[in-house]
């Protein structure tokens, strides 16, 4: 409970901090849902195709009719989703989708094998599980396409999964049993995700890369451990670690299946992504305190990339984003002209700071209450 409160508070703080860093749209720039959708989709394009995303955003900006903007944005977003290169990202996404499908299939198998019944609650749980697995697959496919996220993210996921399996001695029975080693929880829930976030930041060179690596690690490790857990339940049934002798086999199996969902698909993801996110931000801050990185060399040659680089080099031009994120929402650091008045910006910042303080205070209070309870 304590860990859950801290993790949820961490997410809330991260989201509020993120909002604080985003400036409201300039009066001349469009910032509606189609622009955000297309900005998100354009960010999925490979680095060498990032300019096509900018081209789509440039066209969208000139459209005025709402329906027209929606049609254009949806079409371009669909194109961005299927544009090559996919290559290894497609293979990895396919593998993770297969793991998710395997988890769902084994869940159904265990239900049938141990006669867990099929009342209304079962179907509700099955729908929730499928929604989780679909979300995992979609999130993984999106993150895998981000520039430089696949390698560190998948390696991080493997690291997280192996750490959990190592603590359980690589046995089904100990994996299903409660963890007894006192240092295992802080190690698995804090230290390991922190290593993933920090490693992703150092490998990718930015906090954004570290955050993506942590999120992909959370998703891939969650899927992998969920599959492992369901295999363990299907293989052991009510066997393995002792359970309440007055309970039936079916209720024990049902309980264990539910535990796998809560552990692998909720808690593990929450912990890995949140702690990894924080570690990525901290690592990036520490790195910024060191020597300044060299400026990237402008692209040479006749291609559109060089044209963009030349534009970026012109005085007064907006700096190019280095992490292949094409966003329709200007950030403060972009120095976008035509911003909102300073007073309004200060008011907005104050509101978010108050919200941030309230969130932290509520988290501390809840954590204290959960600690007081036996």
């Amino acid at each position: 409970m304590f860990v859950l409160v801290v993790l949820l508070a961490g997410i809330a703080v991260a989201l509020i901090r993120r909002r604080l860093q985003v400036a409201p749209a300039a009066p001349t720039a469009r910032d509606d849902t189609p622009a955000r959708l297309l900005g998100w989709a354009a960010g999925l394009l490979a680095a060498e195709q990032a300019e096509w995303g900018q081209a789509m955003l440039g066209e969208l900006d000139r459209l005025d009719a709402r329906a027209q903007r929606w049609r254009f944005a949806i079409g371009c977003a669909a194109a961005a989703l299927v544009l090559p290169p996919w290559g290894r990202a497609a293979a990895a996404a396919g593998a993770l989708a297969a793991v998710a499908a395997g988890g769902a299939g084994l869940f159904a198998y265990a239900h049938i094998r141990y006669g867990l019944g099929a009342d209304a609650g079962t179907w509700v749980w099955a729908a929730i599980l499928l929604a989780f697995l679909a979300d995992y697959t979609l999130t993984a496919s999106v993150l895998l396409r981000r520039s430089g996220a696949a390698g560190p993210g998948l390696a991080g996921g493997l690291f997280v999964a192996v750490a959990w399996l190592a603590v359980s001695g690589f046995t089904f029975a100990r994996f299903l049993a409660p963890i007894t080693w006192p240092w295992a929880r802080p190690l698995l829930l804090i230290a390991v995700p922190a290593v993933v976030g920090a490693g992703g930041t150092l490998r990718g060179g930015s906090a954004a890369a570290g955050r993506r690596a942590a999120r992909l690690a959370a998703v891939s490790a969650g899927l992998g451990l969920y599959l492992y857990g369901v295999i363990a339940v299907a293989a052991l049934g009510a066997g393995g670690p002792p359970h309440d002798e007055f309970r039936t086999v079916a209720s024990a199996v049902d309980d264990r299946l539910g535990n796998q969902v809560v552990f692998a698909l909720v808690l593990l993801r929450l912990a890995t992504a949140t702690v990894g996110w924080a570690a990525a931000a901290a690592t990036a801050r520490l790195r910024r305190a060191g020597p300044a990185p060299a400026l990237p060399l402008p692209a040479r040659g006749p291609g559109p990339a060089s044209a963009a680089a030349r534009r970026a080099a012109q005085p007064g031009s907006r700096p190019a984003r280095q992490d292949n994120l094409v966003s329709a929402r200007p950030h403060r650091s972009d120095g976008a002209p035509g911003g909102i008045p300073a007073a309004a910006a200060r008011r907005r910042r104050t509101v978010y700071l108050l919200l941030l303080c309230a969130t932290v205070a509520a988290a501390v209070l809840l954590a204290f209450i959960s600690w007081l309870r036996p």
Partner: protein
Amino acid sequence: MSRVSGVRRNRAPSAQAISVLRALAADPSRWRYGYDLATEVHMKSGSLYPILVRLADRGLLEATWEPGPEGRPPRHLYRLSAAGREYVAALPAARAGRTAPRLHLRWSEASY
């Protein structure tokens, strides 16, 4: 101005790609916006941009940026390259009677 180059594959363009090429060939020296081009060839943006990417990869297209007004993003402009003009000029002989323009938009355009 920038010329988009880097030939990857030499698969024959689809009927939709040819209609884009022909629209551009109507006035080869004129720079065209993506949205206007899509409107002219009655194509959705989701089909047009993969085609433009593929044509640019094959060196048939030139692209340039038009700076936007203050605070607005720049626009991408397209026209045929010299290779593109030659390609279109050779089209009637090479493709006549072989490919009729298709009315339906194909997702396979995006898989190149």
